[in-house]
């Protein structure tokens, strides 16, 4: 036989089964990202059991193989290779943080298997070495970019009187690098200059150097990991640094991390990539965003999180692409993805439609939000609420108020 001919390879296997591989993050430091994945994968398995995918009149049963990246990029690449080469999946889904999406996409490129990824701004996904987007043939990414974040941020900052000076709190990780490399130029046009004292390593325990450099900056912007932001924000309080508006990516993503800030989380702003009030519905289940979020809260008892919609969207995209391709052949799926248009629970997604991004990137709508503390919240309900305060980029998503300056 041939080398590696022991069993199916990628794209092989039964023609009446759609085998989806999912590299999720269930353990390790990024595990909160994976919680929504786990929930959606389970409900999708039920859904597909009752609703097989119909392709050209033939019914495909759907099988989902999940592997845990353990929050480690080497492990992510390893399990992606296993999914492709041992499990023989037809395509690979993955999400959340470039540390995971990029190695998975590399494996898919090397093994000629389609890969659909999300929950990572497109710049750190696309730009892997040097400053040019990589030339990817099998990877398709759906998310927004830093130009969108900066526009949203600028709009939010415009709602609060400020001196046009912003302090940048960027870590030395893929997100921080992308933020610090792109943000200053992007916000300059809006009259805000960002002072970036340099990328600090994750896990930094003392931010007094940053705090002394930040004095006199009305705006704080950054993408720290949650523990680092808590450390920073507390030390800011202790050492008397008080910006008018603080817009923080990543660290404020999950309600639990905002809750962990105590009262100090009130009024912090952040980009919002998915919100239950958005007027979108799932192309698979027909659930609205609100229904999906409510269902999640009922089933898990936890507050809804933004990755939820995107986990759902990954499956919507998959089914649409396979139907468009008319088969599970990897090249056919890749071909279908390159021009795919689909309306998902996170909004309209279309590849090849936007010349300002690489052809394998499809952008999703982005708005801005502010965390508001509900002082009178009952025991057992969630004390913080995320209110949409900026929708210039996606007017279809309704706002719930204006940015209030920090107290």
């Amino acid at each position, binding site marked *: 036989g041939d080398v590696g001919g022991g069993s199916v390879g990628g794209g092989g296997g039964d023609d009446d089964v759609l085998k989806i591989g999912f590299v999720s993050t269930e353990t390790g430091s990024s595990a909160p990202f994976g919680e929504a994945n786990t929930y959606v994968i389970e409900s999708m398995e039920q859904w597909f059991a009752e609703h097989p995918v119909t392709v050209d009149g033939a019914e495909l049963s759907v099988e989902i193989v999940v592997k845990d990246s353990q929050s480690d990029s080497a492990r992510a690449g390893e399990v992606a290779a296993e999914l492709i080469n041992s499990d023989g999946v037809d395509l690979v889904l993955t999400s959340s943080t470039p540390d995971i999406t990029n190695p998975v996409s590399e494996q898919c490129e090397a093994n000629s298997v389609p890969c659909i990824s999300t929950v990572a701004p497109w710049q750190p996904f696309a730009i892997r070495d040097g400053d040019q987007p990589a030339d990817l043939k099998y990877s398709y990414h759906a998310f927004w970019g830093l130009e969108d974040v900066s526009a949203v941020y600028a709009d939010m900052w415009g709602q609060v009187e400020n001196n046009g000076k912003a302090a940048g709190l960027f870590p030395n990780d893929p997100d921080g690098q992308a933020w610090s490399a792109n943000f200053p130029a992007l916000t300059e046009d809006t009259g805000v200059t960002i002072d970036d004292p340099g990328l600090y390593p994750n896990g930094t325990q003392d931010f*007094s150097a940053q705090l*002394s450099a930040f004095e006199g900056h009305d705006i704080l912007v950054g993408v720290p990991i*949650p*523990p680092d932001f808590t450390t920073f924000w507390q030390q800011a309080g202790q050492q008397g640094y008080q910006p008018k508006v603080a817009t923080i990516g990543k660290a404020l993503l999950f309600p639990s991390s905002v809750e*962990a800030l105590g009262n100090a989380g009130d009024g912090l702003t952040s980009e919002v990539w998915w919100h239950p009030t958005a007027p979108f519905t799932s192309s698979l289940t027909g659930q609205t965003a609100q229904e999906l979020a409510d269902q999640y809260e009922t089933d898990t008892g936890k507050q809804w999180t933004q990755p939820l919609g995107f986990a759902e969207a990954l499956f919507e995209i998959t089914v649409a692409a396979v139907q468009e391709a008319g088969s599970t052949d990897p090249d056919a799926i890749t071909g279908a993805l390159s021009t795919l248009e689909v309306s998902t629970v996170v909004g309209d997604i279309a590849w090849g439609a936007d010349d300002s991004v690489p052809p394998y990137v499809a952008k999703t709508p982005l708005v801005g939000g502010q965390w508001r503390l509900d002082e009178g919240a009952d025991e057992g309900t969630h004390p913080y609420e995320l209110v949409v305060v900026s929708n210039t980029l996606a007017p279809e998503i309704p706002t719930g108020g204006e940015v209030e300056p920090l107290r």
Partner: protein
Amino acid sequence: MDWLNAGVQGVLLGGQYALLACGLSLIFGVMRIVNLAHGVLAVLAAYLSLFLVQQGLPLWLAVVVVVPVFAALGYAVQRGLFNPALAQVRARGAGGDSRGGGSRGAGELAPLLVSFGVAVALTSLLQEVFSADTRRIPTGDLASAGVPLGPLSVGLLPLITLVVAVAVIAGVQLFLARTPTGRAMRAVADDPGAAALTGVDPRHMYAVATAVAFATLALAGVFVGMSTQFSPGYGDLVLLFAFEAVIIGGLGSLWGTLAGGVVLGVAQTIGAQIDPQSGVLAGHLVFLAVLVVRPGGLLPRSVPA
């Protein structure tokens, strides 16, 4: 002014490291165990306190509960896991039954690997129980409160942490230096076999040492839990800093550990003041520099060859 501020903040940071390092130093000094589970155990203490606080206990009462619980846990862990592992170190040291294909047994690595196993398993168990979400022990306004100190403003919580660290270290140091039990503990550290000949049960004494270490670690865990957001894996992030504090200070010297924590803290803040990217790196470089100049640490209690 910035430099002064950086220095002061560094000292406060050092207090945090020293508090965490105190138990590490005790275990390292008495048993030569490099306890890799120290960080995650501190996190466990934080979770436990948080749980109690969520049950409605005031924080001080939670601490009063958690510290003795951890002392008991330390006693049990030592008797159940570390003592058997240490027995192998000694078996190897005495040559013991080393007959056979050159295989020498885990030897001095046994405690290291046991603590590693505990760390890995415990981290995952914590995640299973508490999920990977980040938490914090609520402190009201304490966490972000500052107190003016001359021209500077320093955090109240870090100040309290430093004071507690100094108090704990002084207490443990006094216990070791002045009480018969402390003396017996040092004797066991020198020669457990000879200590047994004076009526000390080395295994019990080791367990007492670990109990004390765990009590201090629980306290450190509570302070970690108040001052930052923690998740099951958070312990690894600060474990190395605590080790550095122990080693800079020198084996077996708790005052050294405090000094080590402060040196490391100041190195990090001053380093960050020079270049915000390099705070942690500067701490590491100062650590290595100290070791190059004084391979025994700053204040080693010179232990005989």
